[in-house]
Every structure is written in C-alpha cells, then in structure tokens.
C-alpha cells in the first residue's frame, strides 16, 4: 500500500512538472471509448483543441465519432450505430495536471437495423448532451480522461431510436500533437 502511494505520488509530481503548455494553441487527438449504462460499448476517435484566446485555454473545443462497430457490435448481433458530436468543455484548474471539466455536446445519432421490416422505426436523432469528469495530463504528451454524460434526447418507444439511452461513461486517451 505504501509502495503504491509512493508510485502514485511520483507519477503525479512527474506529471505536474510538465503539464504546463506554453504554446499559443494545443491540439489533442486519440481514442474515445463510451459505455452506455445498460447498453453498448461504442468506440472511436476524437479531437480536442484549445488556445490562449479561449479564456487562457480554459475552453476546449472537441469533436468525436464513435461506433458500436468498434465496440459491442464487433462480431456480435448488437445493433450497428454511430454518434458524431461537436462540443465545448470548460476546464477548472487548467494549469494543473489534474483538471476537472464540464461540457456540452450537440450532434447526430444513427442506428442501422439491417432489414426492411424495420423501416418504419425511427433510427436517427439529434444529440444534446452534458458531461463532466476528470482529466489527467501527463508530462509526456498524453492525457487520460473519464467522464459521466447525460443524453437529453432519448427514445420513449413512440419516437426516437430505441437504443439511444440517457446515461453514458466516456474514457479518452489523447496524444498531444501540438
């Protein structure tokens, strides 16, 4: 236990020393993994951009494309579905390695039912989401985040695609390109 604490303290202090970003802008890109509560894993790619102009890098603009094809639907009978989002985060403690963020996303969801019998069912929807979580910026050019999100538009059996659920968890591993 003591050993583990020393290792964690070492990693955190190591991360802190290099977490400051001196550039005018910053571009991160990498893997986004999403688990919807009581539904699928959907994975894909995401990009995150910030600049000194954006309240001293407190605001981050972000986009992501995730699909169940790279998650639960990979070699299974799960429904193939994609989500594309654009959004912005507000970062608290933006100069620290461990930051808190909360953000808003808007986007589009589409599911594929693969048989004409289901043509009458809704299979697409706009997305409106809020999320909040923690991000850790390592000294080396990687960051890791975990967040909890909520979809404000879901289905109710009468409208909306049935596999659009409210609660989701997201994990991102991003590489600092610039």
């Amino acid at each position, binding site marked *: 236990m003591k050993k583990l604490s020393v290792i964690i303290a070492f990693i955190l202090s190591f991360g802190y020393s290099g977490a400051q970003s001196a550039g005018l802008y910053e571009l991160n890109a990498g893997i986004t993994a999403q688990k919807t509560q*009581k539904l699928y894993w959907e994975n894909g790619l995401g990009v995150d951009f910030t600049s000194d102009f954006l309240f001293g890098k407190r605001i981050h603009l972000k986009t992501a494309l995730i699909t169940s094809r790279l998650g639960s639907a990979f070699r299974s009978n799960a429904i193939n579905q994609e989500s594309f989002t654009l959004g912005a985060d507000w970062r608290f403690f933006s100069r620290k390695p461990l930051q808190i963020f909360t953000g808003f996303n808007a986007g589009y969801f589409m599911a594929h039912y693969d*048989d004409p*019998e289901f043509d009458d069912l809704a299979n697409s929807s706009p997305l409106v989401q809020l999320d909040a979580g923690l991000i850790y910026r390592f000294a080396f050019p990687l960051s890791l985040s975990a967040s909890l999100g909520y979809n404000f538009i*879901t289905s*109710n059996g009468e409208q909306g695609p049935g596999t659009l*659920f409210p609660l989701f968890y997201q994990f991102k591993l991003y590489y600092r390109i610039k």
Partner: protein
Amino acid sequence: MKTDRIYLLFLLFIFVSCNKMPEIDNNTMLDGDQIFDISLVQPERFLISARYPAPSALQKDIPVIIAAHGYTATTFEWDELRDYADSTGTFYVSQVLLGGHGRSYEEFRKSTWKDWQASIRDEYKKLSRLGYKNIYLAGSSTGCPLIINLIQDGFFENLTKPKKIFLIDPIVISSNKTLTMVNALGPVLGYTSVELTDGEQGKWYVYRPYETLKQLMKLIDLTRKELQSGIRLPQNTKLKTYKSTSDGSADPVSAVLIYKGMKHADGTPVEVEMVDSKLHVFTRLRGRDGVTEKDKALQMKTFKEMEQAMIHP
C-alpha cells in the same frame, strides 16, 4: 459541522424513502390482501395440466399453448385467446400465472425474475411428462424474455420440444429509459405507480416496487446480452415475433434485437412482423378504453394466424 448535518439529513431522507409503502386499497387493488388472481384458487380453469391430468390419446394430440403474461399483469392478459380457443375448439390454452404475480404487493416485492419464470417451467414440464405432443408457447411483454431465457438455458433438452413460440410485444429494451438508472434511483423512489382503467382494476398491480423493477432490468439486460451472443432455437422449433411499431412500454427496437439475435436450428432467420398499433400487448383488448375496430381486427387476425400455425404446422 453544518456539512455533517446536511449529510445526516440526506441519509435520513434515503432511509425514509427506502421505507416508503404505497397506500393500498384492499377492496379494489390487486396489490392488497383481498383480491387474488382466480387461477390461484381454481387452477383447473387456467392450467391444462390441472384440467386434464390424465389426457386421452386424442387429447395428447391437440395443440396446447402455454401463455405467459407480462410484468405486473395476471392470467387476465390471455383470457381473450382462451375464449377464442374455446370458441374454435381447435387448441387448448394453458394460462400460467407468473410467480410473485396476482397475489399481494409484499409477495410481488420479494419475488425475483426466476420466481416469475418458475410457473412457466412447471407447467411445461407437467405437460411434457403427461404426454402432450404438440406444445406451443406464447409470451406477452415480460413473458417473452422469460421464454427466451428458457431456450438459452437449455430447458427443453430433455423435454418435448415446443413446436412454435409466439412473442407478442416482447420487451428487451424498455421504452422508459429511466429504468436503466433503477439501481441509483430505485431506493429513493421506493416504488412507481400506473393508472389503470376501470376494466383493469384488480387485474394488474398498481404499484411497482423498485426491487421488482431492478429484477425486470436484470432480466432484460441479460436477455439483450444473450441475444447479442446469439441464441439457437431447438431442432424443429419455430418462432414468430409480433411487435407494435409504437409502444410506450416495450421499445419496438426489441424486435430488431430478437430478429438479429435468434436463429432457427438450421440457421435460418426467425419470423418478425411489425404491426401498425400503438397498444402494448395489442392482443389484449379487454379492459381497455377506446378500443377501435382496427384493434379488434388486428387481434383477431393474430389469433387466427396462431391457430393456423398450430393446426397446420
């Protein structure tokens, strides 16, 4: 100190919420201790194994369909199919009462989805052992994932195989997506309630204890995962799903998951028909308000199709 008080108040709130008991009117509600499903006292009126415990050779050849109702419902949900069968005389309907159902709020609260399923298992085993040769299964709403689980579980391996399974408005995905958060919200809410029509009073539970909502979520989540992995029907067993295109209880996408996840023993796809209806369990019209001619025609068409599938398999 102030934080401690707020924390204590929050804990007290959770504690009080957990102990919430609904106000039950024993004279009118199934949830009370006066009204029970009739099948509990007169099983021979509902279960074929009890009505014909020593079937003749002729009776053993008559198709018998075990009909399983949905969450919070009773045998009432399949009364109209039994009436139809009685009028044609071509098949028997064995209406099972799911475990924990049709009794009291407290018994329902304590039950698990395996208890709900047990009565389907019992009746199937009895009919199989009594020598009935043409056994069919019909499920409505939650009755469907209970039946799907029997297949996945290998329940039919040493029994007479069902000839065909009919799924009416199966629930694999709930229309109410808040159900996915029942583990967190349930203890705070204690229970939820539904509005019943006059004709439905005493036939459905009004109150839904969160413990049973958790069981429902557990069952449908398990079913979704099993379908995701793929389920093969027993040899020579067929399956047809009927699903309303608009349904406030069982999301229509449930039919997509069943279609993608289930295959006949030879690998061919199972049958699915999306029906133009806004009713959940469109085959049950009795007790509903505002039933249309279209609803009646759809119910009759479905019963006839089921009958034809049984007498001309």
